[in-house]
């Protein structure tokens, strides 16, 4: 293949990739038990955020979460023996992405956990994400004590079944229009989800009231959603996964289909290169820390939530959410505009359905092209929470982090070889 032919083929393939992204019809359809809904998730299997990793290389919060999940599943009686079981190879570790799933921060998914089910009704695929546990001491930040496990059991036995029944009763909640409204209300869907959480609660409340007879139980459901501004994050993540999976495997496409981190390594996958991971060490977010904490307490970047940036939200939609720029220490409202403009340089297109009022209703940058990333020297910007580096303490701040350029350079070399121009 000549260089001219290769360039034309990549342009055409990338146009197809973005076409699929824009044609997606993601619908929040159900909450199901992970082990029943996710094909192949069986036995003592633990799904985690990021590219593949084994117990020896896991960071503190990831190990803490794994130990907690093992106790939650009843595979060990206490955290100590759970850690010993994991260290001895007594559980199988796999990335969420391998099982059509995603999870925030540590991202653990185990068979008994409830997962939200997002159907991409344009392509017939489904994607999964656990329920957001709320703020404070939670498993996604490495929490694993009795309080954390009790909340997870209530999510599995109380919240999940009721929320799933309500979603089925409502016929699902279409997510693209909800995201569009959220963008106009100041959300970027990674570190700010207050508008979309409210919109979702407003949409599902009547169905919840119809399927839950016990008024006290219903009130607790409403309180849980209404008391957690980030409840919608996990919905956005499952939606991102449902949108991006049909983009995998388009020959000749240099569009990124996944960005993800496990607290140790950052990984990306590229449409024309199948499900191969290109990895590099994660970076430390720059941001603001809660009182009493500093960068010395922080764990490096972690979580599958970068699927949100992969579809053009989060750091790519910073201009929609000036309040986030301050929260993550990224500067002023004017800076927020520049963040989004910078991401336009590395994207294939703009999404005409997800627009940003402050940019004269320009669409969010859509379809990250590894060629543009390497050529521009502009790595994707990610808005993220920051976990304490020790298990069980939780979130200590929020910030901005960049995807490591080395991932894109490795992928570019592999892509050139795949295209026959290396």
């Amino acid at each position, binding site marked *: 293949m000549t*260089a*001219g032919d*290769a*360039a*034309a083929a*990549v*342009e055409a393939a990338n146009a197809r990739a973005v076409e699929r992204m824009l044609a997606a019809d993601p619908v929040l359809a159900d909450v199901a038990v992970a082990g029943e809904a996710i094909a192949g998730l069986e036995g003592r299997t633990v799904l985690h955020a990021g590219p593949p990793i084994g117990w020896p290389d896991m960071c503190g919060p990831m190990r803490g979460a794994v130990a907690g999940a093992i106790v939650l599943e009843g595979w060990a009686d206490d955290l100590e023996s759970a850690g010993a079981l994991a260290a001895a190879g007594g559980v199988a570790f796999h990335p969420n992405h391998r099982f059509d799933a995603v999870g925030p921060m540590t991202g653990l998914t185990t068979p008994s956990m409830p997962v939200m089910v997002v159907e991409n009704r344009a392509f017939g695929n489904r994607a999964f994400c656990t329920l957001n546990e709320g703020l404070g001491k939670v498993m996604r930040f490495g929490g694993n004590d009795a309080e954390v496990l009790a909340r997870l059991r209530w999510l599995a036995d109380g919240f999940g079944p009721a929320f799933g029944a309500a979603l089925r009763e409502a016929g699902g909640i279409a997510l693209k229009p909800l995201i569009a409204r959220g963008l106009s209300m100041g959300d970027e869907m990674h570190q700010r989800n207050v508008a979309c959480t409210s919109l979702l609660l407003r949409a599902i409340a009547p169905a919840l009231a119809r399927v839950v007879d016990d008024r006290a139980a219903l009130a607790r459901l409403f309180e849980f959603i209404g008391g957690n501004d980030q409840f919608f994050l996990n919905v956005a993540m499952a939606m991102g996964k449902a949108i991006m999976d049909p983009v995998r495997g388009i020959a000749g496409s*240099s569009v990124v289909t996944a960005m993800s981190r496990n607290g140790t390594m950052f990984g990306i996958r590229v449409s024309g290169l199948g499900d191969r991971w290109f990895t590099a060490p994660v970076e430390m977010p*720059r941001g603001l820390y809660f009182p009493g904490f500093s960068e010395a307490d922080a764990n490096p970047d972690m979580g599958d939530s970068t699927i949100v940036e992969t579809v053009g939200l989060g750091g790519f939609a910073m201009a929609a959410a000036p309040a986030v720029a301050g929260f993550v*220490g*990224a*500067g*002023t409202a*004017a*800076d927020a*505009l*520049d*963040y989004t*403009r*910078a991401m336009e340089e590395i994207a294939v297109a703009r999404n005409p359905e997800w627009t940003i009022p402050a940019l004269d209703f320009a669409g969010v940058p859509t379809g990250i*092209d590894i*060629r*543009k990333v*390497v*050529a*521009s*020297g*502009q*790595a994707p*910007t990610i808005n993220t929470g920051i976990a304490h580096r020790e298990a069980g303490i939780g979130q200590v701040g929020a910030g*901005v982090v960049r995807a490591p*350029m080395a991932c894109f*350079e490795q992928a*570019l*070399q592999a*892509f*050139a070889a795949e*295209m026959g*121009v*290396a």
Partner: protein
Amino acid sequence: MRDRPQPIQDLLDGPVAVVNVGLARFARTLEGQGIAAVQVDWRPPAGGGPGGGGPPAGVGRRPPAGGDRRLIDLLDRLGA
């Protein structure tokens, strides 16, 4: 109250001429008190606003392809 230094006292003894640079609200506040003020429309160069001199600090970039000749060649062949 401490006595003012003599040069400042001399300045304030006569009519005061105010030249305000930047935020116009300061000039308008003085005018509201009957004090004449000349407003100079000025803002810091590359003030960080839209188009104001490149990406903000958190969006720093590397040189294209990190200056790596081999990557630049690959990009040329891939049409970037």
